[in-house]
């Protein structure tokens, strides 16, 4: 196989892996969110007093364990929010596997900047 053809095949493989990871993440997230929403509508109870809802990962997990509708919905949303991060992570791994170090380092840079902005946002 020529170098160009090998490059092309590598890109295609990477894209398929990224798309599969995304699909799984999105399907799991949508199912969980949907279960929570249906539970909330059927019982009419959010599991939390008044208009309040959990605002941290720890609270969400605590509520999820006892199956509180809002916590279930937020768990699904949390997984959705993580799908893009997962996508970047999977890309790094696939680029390294394909020995495309230029794009592996570009993606690592993006990942680092994302983490920095996430940490700055919390401060």
């Amino acid at each position: 196989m020529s170098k160009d053809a090998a490059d092309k095949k590598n890109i295609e493989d990477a894209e398929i892996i990224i798309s599969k990871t995304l699909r799984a993440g999105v399907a799991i997230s949508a199912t969980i969110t949907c279960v929570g929403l249906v539970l909330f509508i059927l019982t009419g109870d959010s599991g939390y007093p008044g208009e309040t809802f959990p605002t941290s990962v720890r609270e969400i997990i605590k509520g999820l364990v006892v199956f509180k509708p809002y916590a279930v919905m937020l768990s699904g949303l949390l997984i959705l929010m993580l799908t893009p991060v997962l996508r970047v992570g999977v890309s790094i791994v696939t680029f390294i596997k394909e020995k495309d170090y230029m794009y592996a380092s570009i993606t690592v840079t993006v990942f680092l900047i994302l983490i920095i902005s996430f940490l700055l946002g919390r401060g």
Partner: protein
Amino acid sequence: MISITVEILLISVFAGFIGSLLGLGGGIIITPALTLYLGIDIKYAIGASIVSVIATSSGSAIAYLKDKITNVRAGMFLEIATTTGALTGAFLAGVISTKYLYLTFGFLLLYSAGNMFRKRNQELPQEFPANPLAEKLKLNGSYCDRALAQQVDYHVTGIYSGFGMMYIAGVISGLLGIGSGIFKVMAMDSFMKLPMKVSTATSNFMIGVTAAASAGIYLSRGSIDPKIAAPVALGVLFGAGVGTKLMQRLKSTTLRLIFIPVLLYVSIEMIVKGVRL
């Protein structure tokens, strides 16, 4: 309760549909619809629009990646510019007058709407000399266009200006908190001469990554109200699924015709905001 949930779902299906077609996050539809039509507090509407951006991005990226319309390399490379831009924007908040930002970028969008109108009959970018930097960065690509029923090979140019525009897109989204998707599409379509479909699909791929970085902040601020955000996520995912299927069968010229009024609307809204500030 059920009726509001259904209304949010329907709005979100529409937002996801338009967002996946045009490479935008759908925030330009979700935010006004939730606040003006349903009377939801802007705080929760913004949280819902962040969820909408991520849902549009992840929902449509599945199909676009599979069909190789997304240029992953270009997306990752340009993501460096948007993320550093967003960081700069966060630091510049309070230093730069938002009034002039709204005005400047409102007019820039107006100009690019005109630019796009002139290109309205152009299905694919015209030929131009190969760009050595694009070769080196392996940015040139090809995708299967179902509307034209052919494999489209394309080259990328204007790397520096496109990268610069992406940086600015990041700064604006960091400062004004508004959809950087529209600027991303503009940078790829006008500066880098990517085919329209590749521009919108790649923009879609990128916006989710940028939005995810700020999602944690919105969660801890209490902006992600589950009874609003959950139907938004489900509706947008569904709408994006339908939109991606349709987009592959649409001609780029049709996509442009849908894009131009959206561009006009956003630019006028920004200019009006700038004048009022």
